[in-house]
């Protein structure tokens, strides 16, 4: 019999229970789909790394004899080590006016199990005698290349043809960026090609030397120990950079993406489940109150406490199970397209999804834990009642003046419905708190993604429009004095301004804190690279001292006035270190850099006129000519055109906004649910009052205004509370999202608050509209004939 009661009770309030289930479902969708995507990424990553023998360490050297490798291989802790040639060359493709770069990487086709071996998905093995290459699949697909096709490149100032014989993926370029400054992979302008070592040597004319070393470690070996052994060995050959797998760009970005997802999967679902739990708690508590008489009778019949508890917990059990099953299944289902989406960004084989029983079960358990906890809290009162007590009506509400009534001008202004609403709020503070928190949460859920979208756009556009304001950047192939090139560029048609710049990889040390970054040297009066302070004012690069980014200051525990140690492989004598004083800390959201005046930087390094790139301002129409003229120059590595990079980024950003709309949708649903449920609960609790108002001839709208006034009143304060809540969530988000490539600012944008305000109000309004239908259906006769 009790089972029938459960089903009828659920049916009677199906709207409210469905809403509660919906919120559980949203939470579980996020939990299940995110967890599965994380697992899929992890699994694909680990398998790919293991199978392709992904390196544990990387070193870039000016030139080292290939014969040294055998000696280095024997160093303690090293499992395997390979010398490679790595060189970016320009590609000549028909009907492409953009600069396209191909990174040539040498491999030894005679060796088995190369480090960072590419997986061939189409094609044949490389012939060590031929000018043949394998290319990465994204580049292959983007440019619609074909096997056996020849492509023309420019290496060391000469044009050469390379034949494509295969294509595939490499663990080193899962997220393929040309430089660490890039934000997104751009297969349109950057590809990777693998070529037999012997032929590459002749192509580049490097003789018997290589310029890149990758190595793997023996189990249980600390990378740091090996690095210490390697550095003195490599220094004589011009060691430029040596780093562990954890700092390898592609690996770093993939790892950080996984960590960000993990943070989301752990926190966001709990918020949704907490909201659902509160809804359930309130509904059960109300039901128990309304069913005091029934509980009393059950007890009088001799039902045990355990039976009654089981009866009321079964509501929670049903809700939790339904929510868990639907949420779990939807989450699993969504993990498929979600994983596919990641295939676009992360280029690795075996990245796909499959049904996961583990997360399905975990989702249901999670949902049940919340539901049963909330349910138990909601109905425990019923258990402690004595039968006789239960059958008596609850103690009457004692009319008492509330504080607001003393603010008489405000009180006078209110309609009677308004007065009722305000007294209701104080009569049921727990409920009011729930509405307050629920709407505040909704508001934040809406403001947060919008803020993040605004901010990331702002950051990127600022970087292009306010900070790096040059039109073209010419990267030089050797960080040497380039007087001739500079003179030439100055006289190039359409040239307006030429500025030099030095990007020097350094290690900054403060006490035991240490960080590898790029120290940027700029001319004192630079117009093409602007260092901005917090207020957006331009700062000159210091002649005495160094400017560091805010995040770097935090990582190194630095303050203005502290002295910092600089080490660099580009020092005249790499054994020495220099000290400089931090003279300022600046906000920097893209990249992680330190800044100095370029001459001062040269002095610090003990060098003269070191320049790594040249920034240009020039007529847009003369840029193609510039590219053409310098395409084949061996002194120049790359020519970056700002406008076309910005266009590419804009395109990519448009595709990521889908996620934002999904989050907005979740926010709207949550807000709707909270408001709708509180309206439904109030309706059923006060149906008698509302019915008598209808009998008096009030329209449904007037009757509803008692409830809506209460909700708008609380909603107004909730939205105000939502502003600091959003700020807190944004700070939390920034902490989990920020990394060396990108740090998120934590200022909310006015637009996002406005949108959140409008959307929250919209969902409140909509929920009330739908709740109003229930009022129209209220059976007056039925309600009023029963005793209170």
């Amino acid at each position: 019999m009790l089972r029938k009661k459960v089903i009828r009770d659920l049916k009677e309030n199906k709207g409210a229970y469905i809403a509660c289930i919906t919120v559980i479902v949203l939470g579980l969708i996020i939990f299940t789909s995110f967890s599965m995507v994380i697992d899929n990424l992890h699994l694909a990553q680990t398998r790919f790394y293991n199978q392709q023998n992904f390196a544990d360490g990387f070193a870039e050297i000016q030139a080292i004899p290939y014969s040294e490798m055998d000696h280095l291989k024997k160093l303690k802790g090293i499992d395997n080590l390979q010398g490679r040639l790595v060189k970016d060359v320009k590609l000549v493709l028909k009907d492409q006016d953009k600069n396209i770069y191909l990174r040539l990487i040498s491999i030894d086709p005679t060796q088995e199990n190369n480090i960072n071996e590419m997986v061939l998905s189409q094609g044949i093995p490389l012939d060590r005698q031929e000018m043949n290459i394998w290319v990465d699949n994204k580049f292959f697909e983007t440019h619609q290349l074909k096997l056996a096709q020849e492509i023309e490149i420019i290496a060391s100032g000469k044009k050469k043809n390379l034949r494509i014989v295969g294509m595939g993926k490499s663990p080193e370029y899962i997220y393929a960026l040309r430089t660490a400054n890039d934000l997104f992979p751009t297969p349109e302008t950057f590809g990777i090609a693998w070529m037999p070592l012997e032929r590459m040597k002749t192509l580049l004319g490097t003789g018997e030397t290589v310029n890149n070393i990758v190595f793997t470690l023996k189990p249980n070996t600390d990378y740091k120990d090996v690095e210490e052994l390697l550095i003195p060995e490599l220094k004589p050959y011009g060691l430029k950079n040596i780093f562990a797998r954890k700092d390898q760009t592609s690996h770093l970005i993939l790892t950080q993406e996984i960590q960000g997802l993990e943070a989301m999967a752990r926190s966001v679902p709990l918020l949704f489940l907490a909201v659902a739990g509160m809804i359930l708690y309130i509904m059960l508590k109300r039901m128990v109150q309304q069913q005091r008489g029934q509980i009393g009778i059950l007890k009088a019949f001799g039902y045990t406490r355990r039976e009654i508890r089981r009866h009321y917990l079964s509501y929670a059990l049903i809700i939790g199970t339904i929510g868990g099953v639907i949420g779990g299944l939807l989450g699993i289902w969504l993990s498929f397209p979600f994983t596919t989406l990641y295939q676009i960004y992360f280029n690795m084989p075996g990245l796909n999804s499959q049904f996961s029983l583990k997360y399905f079960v975990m989702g249901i358990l999670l949902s049940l834990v919340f539901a049963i906890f909330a349910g138990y809290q909601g109905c425990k009162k019923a258990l402690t009642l004595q039968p006789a007590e239960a059958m008596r009506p609850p103690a009457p509400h004692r009319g008492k003046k509330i504080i607001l009534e003393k603010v008489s001008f405000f009180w006078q202004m209110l309609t009677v419905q308004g007065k009722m609403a305000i007294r209701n709020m104080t009569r049921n503070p727990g409920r009011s708190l729930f509405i307050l928190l629920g709407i505040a949460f909704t508001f934040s859920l809406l403001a947060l993604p919008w803020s993040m979208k605004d901010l990331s756009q702002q950051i990127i556009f600022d970087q292009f429009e306010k900070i790096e304001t040059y039109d073209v950047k010419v990267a030089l192939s050797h960080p040497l004095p380039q007087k001739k090139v500079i003179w030439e560029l100055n006289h190039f048609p359409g040239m307006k301004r030429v500025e030099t710049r030095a990007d020097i990889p350094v290690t900054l040390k403060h006490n035991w804190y240490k960080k590898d970054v790029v120290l940027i040297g700029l001319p004192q009066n630079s117009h093409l690279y602007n260092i901005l302070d917090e207020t957006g004012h331009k700062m000159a690069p210091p002649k005495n001292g160094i400017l560091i980014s805010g995040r770097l200051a935090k990582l190194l525990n630095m303050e203005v006035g502290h002295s910092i140690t600089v080490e660099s492989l580009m020092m005249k004598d790499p054994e020495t270190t220099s000290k400089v004083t931090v003279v300022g800390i600046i906000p920097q959201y893209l990249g992680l850099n330190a800044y100095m005046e370029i001459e001062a930087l040269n002095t610090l390094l003990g060098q003269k006129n070191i320049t790594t790139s040249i920034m240009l301002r020039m007529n847009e129409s003369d840029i193609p000519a510039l590219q053409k003229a310098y395409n084949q120059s061996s002194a120049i590595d790359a020519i970056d055109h700002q406008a076309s990079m910005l266009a590419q980024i804009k395109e990519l950003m448009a595709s990521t906004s889908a996620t934002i709309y999904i989050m907005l949708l979740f926010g709207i649903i949550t807000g709707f649910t909270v408001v709708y449920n509180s309206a439904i609960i109030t309706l059923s609790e006060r149906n008698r009052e509302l019915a008598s108002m209808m009998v008096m001839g009030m329209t449904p709208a007037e009757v509803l205004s008692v409830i809506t006034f209460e909700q708008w009143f609380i909603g107004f304060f909730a939205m105000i509370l939502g502003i600091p809540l959003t700020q807190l969530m944004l700070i939390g988000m920034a902490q989990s999202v920020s990394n060396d490539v990108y740090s998120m600012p934590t200022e909310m944008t006015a637009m996002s608050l406005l949108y959140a305000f409008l959307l929250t109000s919209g969902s409140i309004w909509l929920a009330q509209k739908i709740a109003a239908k229930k009022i129209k259906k209220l059976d007056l006769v039925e309600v009023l004939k029963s005793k209170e």
Partner: protein
Amino acid sequence: MAPILVAKNLSKSYQMGEIRVDALKDVDFEIYKGEFIVILGPSGSGKSTLLNMIGGMDQVSAGELYYKGNPLHTADLKKLTLFRRHTVGFVFQFYNLMPNLNTYENISLATEIAEDPLSIETVLEEVGLSDRAQHFPSQLSGGQQQRVALARAIAKNPDILLCDEPTGALDFQTSIQVLKLLKRFCENYEKTVIIITHNAGIAKMAHRVFYIKDGQLTHIDHNENPVPPEAVSW
């Protein structure tokens, strides 16, 4: 004088799944301005159903019902709301006051939506609760609460006052008080008052008594000399 309420073959039935309950069958009557009418009948006979039809609480199933020539049987929910708003006052056995509004506010809830309300002070004076204006329902006795409910109904200044067992939950003395108020409202303001009761004694106050049985209006008694409420006894 034209009647203000006219019913012709008025019927109401409830559909409950397979079964149809005919709560009211082919009832005919005319009711005039200023009349005091009592409805008598056994439990379940359809009294409340009839009163609810008259008060526009529920839609008519068949037959015709007119208020001052305007059809109520064809009125939609919106029209019925307006009819209740401007024409009818209701009093129930259970007082149905708003627990979180005080006496004064409970009454103003009604006057705010009325076209031509009586002053709240006057009404409170009439029901003898002027000194209880700031009290909440939980601070009032049952009889006082019923008087507030009555005041609330009267304050709208309705043409028709409908009471479903208004004294059902009250003791003898308090009941007499409430009846006096009803009578006074009927006479002083020349309003129609219709009361359902199980008390044949109360019927002596009425101008006419409607007898209901099994959903039918079996007959109507005319009372040439209605007695004053003080003389009523049971």
